[in-house]
């Protein structure tokens, strides 16, 4: 359908007003909201993700597209009131206790939502107990933890230990990221994944969700 393609293209151009207007028109044309969401909004962001990976565009254009996508989601959200926005998985994210840097975590959250995930953002300075409690309560598949300080990286390990104590290792998957964090550190503490940037984190979360559903 032409209008679905137009919405996707408007997302890629970062034109939120046009996305909003076209999404409204698509709804009026009785196109199922789930189809608009999957084909136009998530589809548009998937294309953006591919172009970003290919270095055709850079972070600012990705974020302009994300804002435009959110404008479309705002139109669709009331239509999913009963059953909630359909999501490919639920992820709890936060910056670990003692750390107030949340730009990186925010970017991951934005990209995850763009890929169709439901994101529970716990903010910054999040203790291990809060990560585990929120993931359990929300029935989340993945916990994503961010740290920008070497001194706060041990909180990631403590969260994994708490998951183990509660018998949740393997039931709730974990991904970590942030400037001082590395693949080696992730392996060392037993995290299921490591995201070196926001798009890589999304790919990793997709893999983890797939592992859980298989």
């Amino acid at each position, binding site marked *: 359908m032409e209008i679905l393609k137009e919405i996707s293209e408007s997302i890629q151009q970062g034109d939120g007003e046009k996305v909003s207007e076209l999404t409204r028109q698509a709804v009026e044309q009785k196109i199922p909201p789930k189809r608009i969401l999957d084909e136009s909004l998530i589809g548009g962001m998937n294309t953006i993700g591919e172009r970003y990976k290919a270095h055709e565009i850079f972070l600012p254009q990705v974020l302009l597209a994300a804002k435009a996508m959110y404008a479309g989601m705002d139109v669709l959200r009331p239509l999913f009131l009963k059953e909630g926005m359909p999501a490919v998985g639920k992820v709890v994210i936060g910056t670990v206790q003692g750390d107030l840097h949340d*730009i990186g975590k925010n970017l991951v959250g934005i990209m995850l939502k763009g890929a169709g995930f439901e994101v529970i953002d716990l903010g910054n300075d999040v203790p291990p107990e809060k990560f585990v409690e929120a993931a359990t309560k929300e029935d989340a598949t993945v916990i994503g933890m961010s740290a920008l300080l070497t001194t706060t990286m041990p909180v990631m390990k403590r969260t994994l230990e708490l998951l183990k104590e509660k018998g949740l290792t393997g039931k709730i998957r974990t991904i970590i990221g942030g400037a001082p964090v590395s693949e080696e550190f992730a392996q060392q503490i037993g995290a299921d994944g490591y995201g070196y940037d926001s798009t890589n984190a999304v790919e990793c979360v997709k893999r983890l969700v797939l592992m859980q559903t298989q």
Partner: protein
Amino acid sequence: MRKILEIPVDEIRPEEDAVLETQGIPSGQELTEDVKALLNRATDLYLGLSTPRAIISDISIPEFADIYHGEGKNEKDTPLDAIFRKTDSLALFAVTIGERVTKKIDRLFQANDFALGSMLDSVASAGTDKAAGRVESRYFDLLSEKGEITPSKGVLRFSPGYCGWHMSGQKKLFEFLRPEEIEVTLLESYLMKPLKSISGVLVAGDKEIFVFDDSYPFCSVCKSRSCQERIKALFGESRPNRKKGVV
């Protein structure tokens, strides 16, 4: 000497390349109109909201040796450990651009204005670094006024969390410097508030004492590697080619 420095905002406008690098945009890349507009808006916001201030306080070599030892968590072999003992003058410093920029970034993200929020964060980080560079210059000027440094010498800054100096070094540094006077505080995790702040030591001395190669074990995991650029800037075009530990 203990001094509060007011830094004019127009002195801490960051270089475009430094900002774009943190946005993942390589140097020399032609910018699209939307990215140019974002950069201009973010820079205007940064210049309008920043309140750059710094504090410096002289410290002797033995006093600094204790602060540098900190909680005993530094790497075994570090460049600063060798450098500060050869210095003419040392001063602890903290510099901040204030809290208003960080609050604005939060508000932009809450309003889904991610691109501008992220760009403002990059501008503010590069700007804070520039402010720290201004503190280096001002310290050089202050020493010059007292006749304690000559143009052939240089000043370079080092911060906890870099070059093998453990983050926990912030504790003793803050106890000595007391930067609360410029409203910079330290959290238990050794993180500073406002977030856009830098603390450390200013080292003044012969330029040769600063030369080291980035071949320490911890250098391999360092994602910044700005040390070599800063050493190079100190020498201008005349930096001697030298390996670690060899003059």
